[in-house]
């Protein structure tokens, strides 16, 4: 049974540095780390394309690269710190992230018409990203604390609060980001043993409530849905983004227009091209081939997370990996779905690839935590698996 590494452990002194390195090499899921790194590097490449092409090194490229390095540091931190430590810290981290979310109302400054950033010493931080990670941790902790594989009412409440509170706070300003919390709750309940009948009831309830919800939507929100069916309904307004994205993607063809060469990108027709719509830049410049390769990378990341979850020795670790899987999966599906025009426009970044320090770090944190689960033998709690 592997124990967590601690500085000064006798094992380290006994076996020497080479053994230490070998052990590390064995313990790290290189496929997972590699795919994440590859995606992040791709992101940097296309941020550069979106900003300046081959002309000069863009400021944003440099910033993202710095965040990448920090992100790798985060991975190291997440791996080295034993998972059970993270579990113990979960509620505190979660509470701290709530403070951060609330602070946005007071200290927040606007960017892109939304106030969800705080400036901390010259950097823009998005507390909602940190909150997502903290929530995943807390959910895993709650799941780990469940005595049996049966969902009790108090478990449902616990999950509900853990996810619902940050979601509600975020929803005040950013409905799109708030929406990414909901799947976490659904998956937590589902994976904890929610009976299928409840799943059916839930779906039916959703179907019944949908028209009510539709009526509650503001005009512009409704337009976002209408525009999925036919973006030309509002070609110069809400439909503009989907139309430009489609043009960018479609005109990429099979092999693309070439890095830094896509006219939709270079001439500025594609909006948000270094953030939410970066996938369209990849599709325009590297074509169908490039887009599929990127999707394959994501699929690989998700697959490795599933494997890690399966190999986890206890509930907490498995849930942590599931949480990471859900977090990354939801973001990828919503973002790519939006960019290709099958889902309504929501301001969700593409993990690892979109420009944005907070999101990049959160993504690396998720992967780091999952790597940590594997590195520590899947032991997320001091209790042994039942």
């Amino acid at each position, binding site marked *: 049974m592997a124990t967590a590494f601690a500085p000064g452990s006798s094992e380290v002194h006994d076996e020497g540095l080479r053994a230490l390195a070998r052990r590390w090499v064995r313990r790290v899921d290189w496929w997972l780390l590699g795919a994440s790194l590859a995606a992040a590097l791709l992101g940097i490449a296309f941020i550069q394309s979106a900003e300046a092409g081959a002309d000069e090194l863009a400021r944003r490229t440099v910033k993202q690269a710095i965040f990448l390095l920090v992100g790798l540091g985060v991975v190291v931190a997440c791996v080295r710190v034993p998972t059970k430590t993270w579990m113990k810290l979960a509620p505190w981290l979660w509470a701290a992230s709530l403070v951060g979310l609330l602070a946005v109302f007071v200290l927040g400054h606007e960017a892109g018409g939304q106030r969800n950033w705080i400036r901390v010493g010259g950097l823009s931080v998005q507390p909602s990203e940190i909150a997502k990670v903290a929530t995943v941790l807390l959910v895993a902790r709650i799941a780990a604390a469940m005595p049996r594989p049966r969902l009790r009412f108090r478990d449902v409440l616990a999950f509900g609060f853990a996810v619902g509170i940050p979601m509600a706070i975020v929803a005040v300003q950013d409905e799109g980001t708030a929406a990414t919390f909901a799947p976490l709750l659904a998956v937590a309940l589902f*994976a904890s*043993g929610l009976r299928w009948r409840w799943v059916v009831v839930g779906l039916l309830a959703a179907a019944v409530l949908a028209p009510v919800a539709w009526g509650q939507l503001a005009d512009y929100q409704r337009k976002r849905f209408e525009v999925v069916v036919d973006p030309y309904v509002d070609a110069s307004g809400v439909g503009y983004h989907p139309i430009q994205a489609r043009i960018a993607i479609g*005109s990429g063809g099979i092999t693309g227009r070439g890095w830094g060469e896509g006219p939709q990108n270079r001439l*500025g027709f594609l909006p948000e091209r270094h953030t939410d719509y970066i996938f369209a830049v990849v599709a325009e410049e590297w074509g169908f081939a490039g887009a599929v390769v990127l999707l394959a990378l994501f699929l690989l990341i998700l697959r490795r997370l599933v494997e890690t979850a399966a190999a986890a020795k206890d509930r907490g670790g498995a849930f942590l990996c599931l949480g990471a899987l859900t977090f990354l*999966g939801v973001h990828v*599906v919503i973002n790519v779905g939006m960019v*290709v025009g099958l889902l309504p426009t929501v301001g969700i970044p593409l993990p690892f690839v979109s420009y944005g320090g907070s999101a990049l770090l959160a993504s690396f944190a998720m992967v780091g935590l999952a790597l940590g689960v594997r590195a520590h033998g899947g032991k997320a709690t001091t209790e042994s698996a*039942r």
Partner: protein
Amino acid sequence: MRSAERESGLLARRTRLVFWGFALSLLVFCGRLYDLQVVSVEQWRESSQANSVKRRALPASRGLIRDASGRLLVGNRLAHDLVLDREAELDPEGVASFVESLTGEPREAILEAIRVADETQPDHVPLVLARDLSFSQVAWLEARRERAPALSVRTEVLRQYPNGSLASHVLGHVGEIDARGLLDPELAARHRMGDLVGKAGVEKEQDRWLTGERGVRRVVVDNVGREISSTVELPPRAGHDVHLTIDLAVQRAAEAALAGQRGACVVLDPRDGSVRALVSAPGYEPEAFVGGISDVRWQQLNDDPGKPLRFRAISEIYPPGSVWKPLMAAAGLMEGVRQPSDETTCLGVAHVHGRRRCWKKIGHGALDMRGSLINSCNVYYYHLGRDLGITPIERLAADIGFGRLAGIDLAGEKPGILPSDPWKRREVGERWYDGDTINVAIGQGFLSVTPLQVAQLAASIAARGDVHRPHVFSHAVDPRTGEVVDRWEGERPVRVPYDSATLDFLHEAMVATVEDGTGRRARVPGVTVAGKTGTAQPSSGDAPEDMPDEEVPDRYREHAWFMGFAPAESPELAFAVVVEHAGKHGGEVAAPVARSVIEAWARAHVTVTGQ
């Protein structure tokens, strides 16, 4: 352990389920990508093109207008216009405010212009919001591109008038074509909304030749409409240059001589009807119309008491006064009512169908016909008029061209009034009285003529009976090849049935008028000038006799006339000058204008004719 296994089994199963949910979604997305990028790639490539590739019109420069020697009368220069792309997504309020800060034009006017354009014009036609921006304005706009991406600068070719107000009425001016103009199918065929089109003068009459063909420019633009690159797809074809018969030196001399006065001067070549000079004073600056005349300026021009927009030379009618007398003399001779030697005694007053006076109060004494012309005696003609009757006078006048349009190739000509019994019954409701004839005999009464018609009279005598149609157009040239694409085709001249002896007499008498008579101030050394002076009472009537000269209001002042031809032995010029409400005799103020004209012509031509 069992529950743990079952638990981990459940967890593992459901985890896998979640994973496959994501995987399936990604697969669907791959299908979507395939549809977009493989199946419909052409359509999307086209849309990408449409985003960034636009076609813009390349304006063609308008043809130049030159005088008979090829000297430039109207040229072109470049200007920058502010153009609104109405197909682009735009916020009219924002655009209007932006344009107001740029040009000072009030926001409401701009919003109105946009609204009108949206209602009357298809979207793809750009709207010109301001013309002739200064260089600093263009720079200001370019620095603030993103604020109004639908605006752009279009380079345009504008008219330039190197000679100021010279020949302004003849040359005319251009202006933006309006909706009414586009109703004319001929204009609509070569013009689009916003194009400059000739509005008056030669610019209008020869618009067909002067308008070029616009070209096409292919530009790649970015999302704010900034041009990234541009290629010429179809080069524009410049309009043809139009050459006029006008002689710049003669025109200039005539305008200078009429400066500060109101009146007109017409100078023709009696051999073929070419117009050498056509002056209407005061004139106006055609430059004011370039880029669109301001309402203020337009109002000023219309309110100006000098009426600078009136083309007096062909549109204003006056009583001819004594310049009518040669026609009377010709009628008298040809009807056999007078011989040149027949005398009439002028005592300053005559009773011929009313008490009438001669301008010389003490009278001229006995005068033969030659003397009557040289001294311009009224009494002679009172008697002649009575003896002739209106019919032969009217017939000869009609032959020469009075009472109808001379047919000059400029718009706005008036036919004047050649009175007769039927005319009077129709227009005045009375029959013709003998007294009316007497008035006509000295070029007064109902008789009204344009300066052009008087010049035609002079030309008819100069050309010994041949009256050609007057024209300013000479030929049109393709500026690239120099090829003449159109030339004035002379028509058969109208023949006035003068007889030879009458013509000889008139020639001699009119030369003498200039040598020794009232036309002395038209003498030009080295050139034999033939002429006749005239001083016409305006139709408003006479001022009270006892009123001192300075106090006589303008409308009672007489018009001063002079008409004639030169050189008398082989005339190349036939002219008519009128100075409106001069209050002085024709010999005093009108004859010197003719002198200036002939001098200017002589300076250029003396060597050619070897005189």
